[in-house]
């Protein structure tokens, strides 16, 4: 199994009501699988998933990135932008 902690920021934290959640995924699970699981377990997050990117180890990672046991994953909503 791959146990990861998932950190939520900004509006995501407000929606879920927690800064950190823990998830247990099959060994070899990817970011894409984490995202699918998140959408199922936290339906309030589902509409936001298409605009979220994930970071592991302080770096953005693509959907095919394979998670390791103990990883800290951050869910990054669109960043502040502004003119």
């Amino acid at each position, binding site marked *: 199994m791959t146990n990861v902690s998932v950190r939520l920021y900004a509006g995501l934290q407000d929606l879920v009501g927690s800064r950190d959640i823990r998830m247990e995924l099959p060994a070899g699970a990817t970011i894409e699988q984490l995202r699918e699981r998140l959408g199922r377990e936290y339906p309030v997050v589902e509409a936001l998933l298409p605009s979220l990117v994930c970071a592991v180890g302080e*770096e953005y990672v693509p959907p095919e990135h394979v998670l390791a046991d103990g990883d800290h994953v*951050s869910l990054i*909503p*669109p960043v502040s*932008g*502004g003119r």
Partner: protein
Amino acid sequence: MFAISREPLDPLPLVDAVRCDESGAVALFYGVVRNENQGRNVRYLEYDAYPEMAIKKMREVADEVRAQFPVTGVGVLHRIGRLEIGETSLLVAVSSAHRAAAFDACHHAVDRIKQIVPIWKKEVWDDGEEWIEGHVPEVWPGG
């Protein structure tokens, strides 16, 4: 100098940190909280960040700026937490021998910060609030 802070930002140490004896110009950008956005009265802003990654991404922006412009120094400070109207959320300082590069590089740095640094703002209005959705950071295949 690259930092995320809950305290008011002080521009003077930042300018000292980016200036060297080869610098003839320093461009310093202040992002400040204004009282209006898209027709709504803003009461205050609340900033959230992923601080360790934000600092890493600020450094990447600085490296990019140093590669693209003839600068002599780059520094970035961002405040998080609750900020009132008129308070400074962002300071970006760039020094160069000459002014054109200082202006262009500082402007580019601010644009890039707002594209890739994981910082978020919530606008609080008289009648509601909203986390502003800005730019989706690009993700390169392979990380």
